[in-house]
């Protein structure tokens, strides 16, 4: 038997609480958490790293993006088109923005769906790990919990 803690602030650290501690002692639970991502990924299937895959960016743009997330950029563009007193977008700028903005919207939608799926998959993985824990004999549980 195990109970699950809700996902915490970081979407990539979800905890599963195994209620039965070593030897079935419910007063001393064992908390299973996800460890380092690099430990999870085998070498043959290491996820690509965005920073490594990114092409060089002009210094000014890089300085700007160091303080603005993609969402900040998108929201800023919304505000630039509507907020009073904002430095107006020129017509050529508006034309140049349409396509990347549409692409960003679609990418973000896909990314958010994948995040939801990944959270569910992470929870399933930790649940399976908690089930694995319960199959172990008390002596092995005690040893692994040290």
């Amino acid at each position, binding site marked *: 038997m195990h109970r699950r803690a809700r996902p915490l*602030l970081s979407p990539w650290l979800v905890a599963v609480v195994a209620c039965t501690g070593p030897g079935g002692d419910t007063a001393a639970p064992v908390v299973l958490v996800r460890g380092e991502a690099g430990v999870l990924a085998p070498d043959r299937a290491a996820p690509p790293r965005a920073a490594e895959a990114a092409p060089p960016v002009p210094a000014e743009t890089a300085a700007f993006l160091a303080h*603005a997330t993609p969402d900040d950029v998108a*929201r800023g563009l919304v505000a*630039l088109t509507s907020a009073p007193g904002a430095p107006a977008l020129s017509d050529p700028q508006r034309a140049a923005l349409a396509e990347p903005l549409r692409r960003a919207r679609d990418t973000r939608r896909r990314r958010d769906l994948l995040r939801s799926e990944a959270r569910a998959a992470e929870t399933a993985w930790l649940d399976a*790990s908690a*089930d694995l824990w319960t199959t*172990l*004999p008390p002596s092995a549980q005690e040893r692994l919990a040290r």
Partner: protein
Amino acid sequence: MKRAADATLLVLLLAALAQVGWQLTAGRDGHAVLAVPMLRPGDAPGSLHAPGAPARAARAALATQGTVITAEDLARGVLALERGELEGIPPLDAATRVEVSEALRKVNDAREALLALETKLAAEDAALAADARALAATLTPEQRAWVLAQRDQASVADVERAYWDAVLAALPPTASSPDAP
């Protein structure tokens, strides 16, 4: 006719009782929610915003609940147990071995599924970062400075405000509403 109505009511009542019973027993025991506070009263505002801070804070908070071990360490330990590499621990009996192997296989399947999703997710994150670079490149220095300076305002007042207004407009006014009669 009346008998049929009585039977329907009885079935509905039994279904409701079964639902309540499930929630009070299996539903609660199998999926109890544990709330673990991430911040303590003395923590400074924004202390969870530093790189890696949420993971560290979660680890510290969870350590108050019991012994914390990572799922990866558990899998490694079980593999060592299977290979008889854990000194002082007797080998598993045949029945337990079957159970452990099956559970380990499920863990591995779940891990592979998660990894495949995260690979796709990393690719989408990289695409989104590239989109952001393309968008940022179209802005003038003045516009960039304005976006940074107005970031919070743009989020709260110019974008989220519309959601709040739409939801509040769809709800009936309360006594404290500014436009209440």
